[in-house]
């Protein structure tokens, strides 16, 4: 008897005991369905955690111009913008105890041999060297901007668009790059006005900010960026203040620095957890192409460059590469400190709760620390979700085991019940292995059928989980293939003993069995 014939015979035999067969395969169905669902849920949880980690910006690297963390009062601190200091004219705001350090112009006693000289005098850079529009700029908006005392102050201009381009081009593992100029600005529409944050940025920004969604319209395009167009994207709070809630302002115009700007979109939060509030700097903000801001304000520098790495695990490496690249580009010697600050979520988290100087000392002196933290975090998360998946799956596997025992139970019962049939088949010429094959085929048919139905149950259940929990609980084709193999395996494993019992019967004993 061939294997195919065995399955035909098995199918006929199972059909004769329809209800019993169905109940038996139900055990396997539940087992396979549960295992598949649990694995899908576990993987979904993992993906969801990874999503949340990246959504929380774990892969975001922020490069801020100037190193004004290094305040003069700090021991071992230094002057932030030593590069700029060489070239920029001194800018002094009368009445304030602030200076821009011009190293070349400084008296010899103030010129330290090394930056970490303990007795070096304190300097604090307080102004953007380009922020003296009275002298250098004659753009009509510049004067108005000057009245805005917060604008630009404290920023050291060391980053350029070329830096951003270089990062995008030269560093592997970089996902998105957005250069940024940040100001406070008053935006008006008719007689309504709103004082908010202005971000000059690039079209990659909405991809970096995972929590954003476009409520209306679109973000500005590369073409608009390259053409320095006067287009604007409003944060949901700004849109609400200027236009009222639930109004689509796309195509309308607002004024900024007395210039008309066309609204192309409105961004909002995609989650209630991060919904916009007044003063939040994200949704109470406006977004303009960085080139437009630079043109209007006559700027050549940037405040920040925001970079994302392709994965959380490479964030530290990318941030190190960024530091190296920028140091090289800015011609910073080995002894000199950075003229920019590279921050990751990990370095920020490290500093949380401790004295910032100590935090910086730690981060600066233990080179692997950030990496350790990030990688540990990501492996810990990975490990714990793996453990959860394994736990869920093993609980489900118990039900598969119970299903297998059910198959074995029914097969043993069936062998006893059909002893006379076995005897007859043997009398008619069935060899022991024919009998064995027949019963094995029955067990495998039962568990395979149960497994296939279980796959559909699993697909339906994980679909339900997807709907209810909004997790990406997806059953992979590999999991389906594995489920089929496991189901067949369960059939063979639990069918083998009963089938052997049947095959070992002596023909005459089986035939005379009462």
């Amino acid at each position, binding site marked *: 008897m061939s294997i195919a014939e065995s399955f035909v015979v098995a199918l*006929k035999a199972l059909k004769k005991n329809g209800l019993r067969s169905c109940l038996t395969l139900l055990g396997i169905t539940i087992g396979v369905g549960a295992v598949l669902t649990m694995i899908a849920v576990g993987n979904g949880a993992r993906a969801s955690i990874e999503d949340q980690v990246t959504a929380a910006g774990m892969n975001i690297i922020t490069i801020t111009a100037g190193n004004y963390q290094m305040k003069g009062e700090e021991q071992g601190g230094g002057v932030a913008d030593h590069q700029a200091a060489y070239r920029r004219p001194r800018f002094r705001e009368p009445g304030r105890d602030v200076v821009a350090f011009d190293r070349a112009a400084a008296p010899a006693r103030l010129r330290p041999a090394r930056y970490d000289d303990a007795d070096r005098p304190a300097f604090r850079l307080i102004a953007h060297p380009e922020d003296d529009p009275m002298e250098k700029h004659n753009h009509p908006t510049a004067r108005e901007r000057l009245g805005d005392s917060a604008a630009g102050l404290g920023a050291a201009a060391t980053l350029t668009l070329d830096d951003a381009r270089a990062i995008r081009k030269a560093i592997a593992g970089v996902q998105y790059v957005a250069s940024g100029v940040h100001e406070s600005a008053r935006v008006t529409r008719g007689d309504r006005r709103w004082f908010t944050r202005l971000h000059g940025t690039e079209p990659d920004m909405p991809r970096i900010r995972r929590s954003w969604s476009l409520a209306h319209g679109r973000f500005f395009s590369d073409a608009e960026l390259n053409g320095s167009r006067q287009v604007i994207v409003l944060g949901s709070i700004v849109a609400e203040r200027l236009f009222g809630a639930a109004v689509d302002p796309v195509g309308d115009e607002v004024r900024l620095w007395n210039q008309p700007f066309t609204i192309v979109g409105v961004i909002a939060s995609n989650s209630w957890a991060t919904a916009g509030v007044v003063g939040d700097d994200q949704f109470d903000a406006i977004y303009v192409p960085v080139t437009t801001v630079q043109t209007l304000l006559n700027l050549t520098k940037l405040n920040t460059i925001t970079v994302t790495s392709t994965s959380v695990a490479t964030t530290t490496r990318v941030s190190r590469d960024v530091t190296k690249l920028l140091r090289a580009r800015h011609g910073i010697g080995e002894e000199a400190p950075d003229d920019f600050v590279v921050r990751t979520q990990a370095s920020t988290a490290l500093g949380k709760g401790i004295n910032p100087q100590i935090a910086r000392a730690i981060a600066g002196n233990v080179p692997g620390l950030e990496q350790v933290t990030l990688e540990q975090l990501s492996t810990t998360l990975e490990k714990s979700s793996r453990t959860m998946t394994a736990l869920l799956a093993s609980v489900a596997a118990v039900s598969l085991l119970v299903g297998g025992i059910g198959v074995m139970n029914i097969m043993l019962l069936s062998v006893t019940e059909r002893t006379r049939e076995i005897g007859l088949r043997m009398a*008619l*010429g*069935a060899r*022991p292995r024919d009998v064995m094959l027949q019963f094995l085929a029955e067990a495998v048919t039962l568990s395979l059928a149960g497994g296939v139905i279980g796959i559909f149950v699993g697909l339906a259940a994980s679909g339900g989980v997807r709907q209810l929990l909004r997790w990406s609980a997806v059953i992979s084709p590999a999991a389906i293939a594995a489920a089929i193999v496991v189901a067949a395996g369960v059939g063979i494993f639990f069918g083998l003993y009963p089938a052997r019992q049947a095959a070992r019967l002596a*023909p*005459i004993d089986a035939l005379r069995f009462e």
Partner: protein
Amino acid sequence: MALISIQNLRKTYTIGEVAVQALRGVSLDIHAGEFVSIVGPSGSGKSTFMHMLGCLDRPDAGSYLLDGRDVSTLSRDELARVRNTMIGFVFQSFNLLPRTSALENVELPTLYSPDKLPAAARRAKAMAALKAVGLENRAHHHPNQLSGGQQQRVAIARALMTQPPILLADEPTGNLDTRTSIEVLEIFQQLREERGITVILITHERDIAEFGSRIVNFLDGVIVSDVANTSRRPGGELAPSARIA
């Protein structure tokens, strides 16, 4: 040479502590084309002898040459093959698979035959076999929809599926009334005459045994008489005693 040649066959069963000598040195030659009736009261060893003949059980001692081959030394697989190709079984209790059509029951032996027939050919062959016993219009009935005589005819059709040279019938009329018993026995006679099949009939009823061409009497595990039966009745008549039974 004899189709079946048995020398000094012995078999002892142990039931609990008691050893029962079912066969105590049986020797018998059966030639092709014979209709041998084996008669004896219950416990005479005739059933055990029949199991030996059918290769369903092995003797403790003695030799059994089937078509010149010593079957007492064969493996389980080889014995299965011998049963499949050499011997057709007809049982007292019909032994049809329940909830299975007559046709499928008849097909059963070909499932295990060495020449792999395609399903369609098997079906056709089974249909022909059913036709031979006059049940072609009952092919799709299940055993519980058939009368005892019809069931036994299905069983005969099944026994003939692999065209074995020997038909082994163990009390084939035990569950049948007189009329159908005669029908079944006539089929046996017919098979022997038309196809030259060797029929071995085991019964405890003398009248049934009378249908054979040779009657072998068993008592207490030995053959007590082995005579040719010249008074073979033609079909349709039974002794008065048989009619009462």
